[in-house]
């Protein structure tokens, strides 16, 4: 037994040390940076201690406020739609046997396409002058829309792309969950005369809750980190209509070279997301226990 414990520890520690080196140390460095302003003089980085000044500036940052609001709208709307469509598709296809390899391959295609190509495809489709969407509208006698250039439409347009991109992810996880549900419960329900809706409402949904929760948390984390779609499609504009937090951090930290302030912004966002994940996990654990 002692030998087992030794080997367990011996095999675990290298992974833990590597994890600490690659994750915790950079975070600690970022945390330290957030209390400084960095200036470069004669090729030397000069770190000036500013205390909590960088954190104090956060609430006054208009761009950050716009980014936080847009990120919240983006994450909630996009993930809700992805979960809903993904679940409906999973329900519709779970009992299909013929051609399942084909339809599953087709459904997961959008996740396999690199972000840069998705950006190029949708930018062309949304183009005011040459895009297929406006060509269709004009052919139908309707007015072309400024999909990416109008403050009223731009965020919605980006959400549509995200839904197209990530619904297959939700579909796959939810389908796996549905296929793992025990058949005997459904058979018993049928014998008892339960309708399809009753089966869904009283059996499928409660049993699927842990899978739905995990999928939701995964997608929310990814949605809060959205960057490439925004960068490629709108650059955060027009105005601040598609500004999101990760883009604001990118601008402040990299483009404007405000490394101390950018670090404070990053730490604050990490803290908020971590709090959200903990809250969601606790809520799910409670619901799971009840279910």
């Amino acid at each position, binding site marked *: 037994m002692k030998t087992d414990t030794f080997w367990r520890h011996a095999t675990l520690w290298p992974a833990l040390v590597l994890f600490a080196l690659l994750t915790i140390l950079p975070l600690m460095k970022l945390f330290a940076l957030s209390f400084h302003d960095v200036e470069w003089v004669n090729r030397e980085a000069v770190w000036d201690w500013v205390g909590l000044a960088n954190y104090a500036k956060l609430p006054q940052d208009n761009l950050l406020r716009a980014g936080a609001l847009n990120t919240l709208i983006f994450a909630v709307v996009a993930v809700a739609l992805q979960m809903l469509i993904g679940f409906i598709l999973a329900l519709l296809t779970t009992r299909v046997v013929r051609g399942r390899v084909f339809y599953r391959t087709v459904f997961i295609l959008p996740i396999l396409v690199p972000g840069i190509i998705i950006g190029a495809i949708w930018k062309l489709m949304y183009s005011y002058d040459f895009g297929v969407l406006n060509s269709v509208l004009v052919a139908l006698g309707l007015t072309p829309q400024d999909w990416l250039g109008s403050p009223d439409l731009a965020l919605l347009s980006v959400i549509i792309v995200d839904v197209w991109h990530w619904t297959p992810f939700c579909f796959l996880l939810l389908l796996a969950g549905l296929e793992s549900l025990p058949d005997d419960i459904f058979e018993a329900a049928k014998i008892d005369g339960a309708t399809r809706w009753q089966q869904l409402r009283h059996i499928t949904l409660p049993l699927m809750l842990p899978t739905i929760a995990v999928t939701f948390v995964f997608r929310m984390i990814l949605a809060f980190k959205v960057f490439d779609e925004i960068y490629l499609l709108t650059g955060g504009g027009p*105005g*601040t209509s598609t500004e999101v937090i990760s883009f604001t951090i990118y601008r402040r930290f990299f483009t404007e070279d405000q490394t101390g302030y950018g670090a404070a912004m990053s730490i604050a966002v990490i803290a908020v997301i971590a709090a959200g994940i903990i809250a969601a996990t606790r809520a799910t654990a409670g619901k799971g226990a009840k279910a």
Partner: protein
Amino acid sequence: MSYRTKQSKHLRTGLAASALALCASLASAAEAPITIVINQSPWFPGFQTVVEKYEEETGNTVNLDVNPFAGSLEKQRTAVRSDESPFDILIMNAGFFVEFYTGGFIQPLTDIDPDFALGEDIYTFDDSVCWNAEAKTITCDGGELLTVPVNPNVLILHYRQDLYDEAGLTAPTTWDELYENAKTLQTNRRYGISQRGQRGTFDVTYDVFPYIWSHGGGIVDQQEDGSFQVSVNSPGTLAGMETYLKLANDVGHPSTAGQTQTNVIQNMATGRAAPINSVHAPGLFDDDSKSMVVGQVGYAPPPGTAEIPSATPLGHWLAGVPKNVSDENKQAALAFLTWFQTDAAQRAYAEAGSMPVSRAVLESDMADQPEYRWMKAMAEAVPNARLTFTFPEATQVLAITELRFNQAIGGELELKEALNTAAEEITKVMQDAGYDIPAPELLQ
């Protein structure tokens, strides 16, 4: 002979040939291989062509690390702040080169070779190639030569010469004339003008400069005593932006706030725009694989006002050698920059579809040939071109102006409110950086 033996023989032959080629290459190369970090811009293919020509002529190797605009800046920052830069030449934009000068990252070129000098015909672009470290000023008067310009990148007016001729119009010299011409040429399928309005790194701000300068406005002006004055909400800037918006709203693209440089160039190349005010991509509009308006585009300096003539911002690119590369690589980088300034290289640069930085080439007999007809407009525009930002906080100021101008163009903010907000935000950035700048007087 078995397959394995055959394969082995081919492998040996291939290795021997590669070794011979490598030896031949090393024997003919006079300099160490160098890497240039550069952005992907409309003029890049021309630069790539002259680099290939340099390699052919000298046997030296030049690697190009090509990036989007903002990506190039980030790579350059990381490179100069590390122990040893992976890049031997940085191609820096007018919007951010000052940051590299003030940080002490760029090697004075005469430190590498005391005899090195900028060619007589090479433009200094408002002395932006020199830096006086003691006075912290951009000047060749007492300053050291830090860079060689690689691209003028000034705005010039591109207009449909064929449509202008048909309508009996001439190239406009004022915004009012441009407006009237645009109204005449506007149709359901063609915009009177296409302007860049999207927010980016140095996008909409760059394109509004001719409007605001020619109305006596600015963003942050350096005074004669070296101090700075925020002028983004001055009456001149307001008038300039009103002119921009009048064109955008009355005769422009319906999505001006969403237009990138690529969109604007596409509009011209596909015949959707009568004129555009853009940086020049000479090879593009006369290339029938990319353009529907081959031979139909005319060029002129950007318009101005009756009081203040055309003034284009310098969005030029400068090549500098970082201090943190080996002496051998500094010599190799300088060898390339020396060659790049020659008349032959500059002519080849123009022939490859880019804009030379040599006055001699811009004003040469090439300018009389139809394919280089843009040279006259360029030669006329460059002497009036001005530096946009001369302080290292430029990237923070640009982040503000890119947003506020874009909001004004898109109608998200009323123009005066956008300019006043920008003025307050820029003042705060400058004050936080230690500049003695008074609070701005707000437009009513």
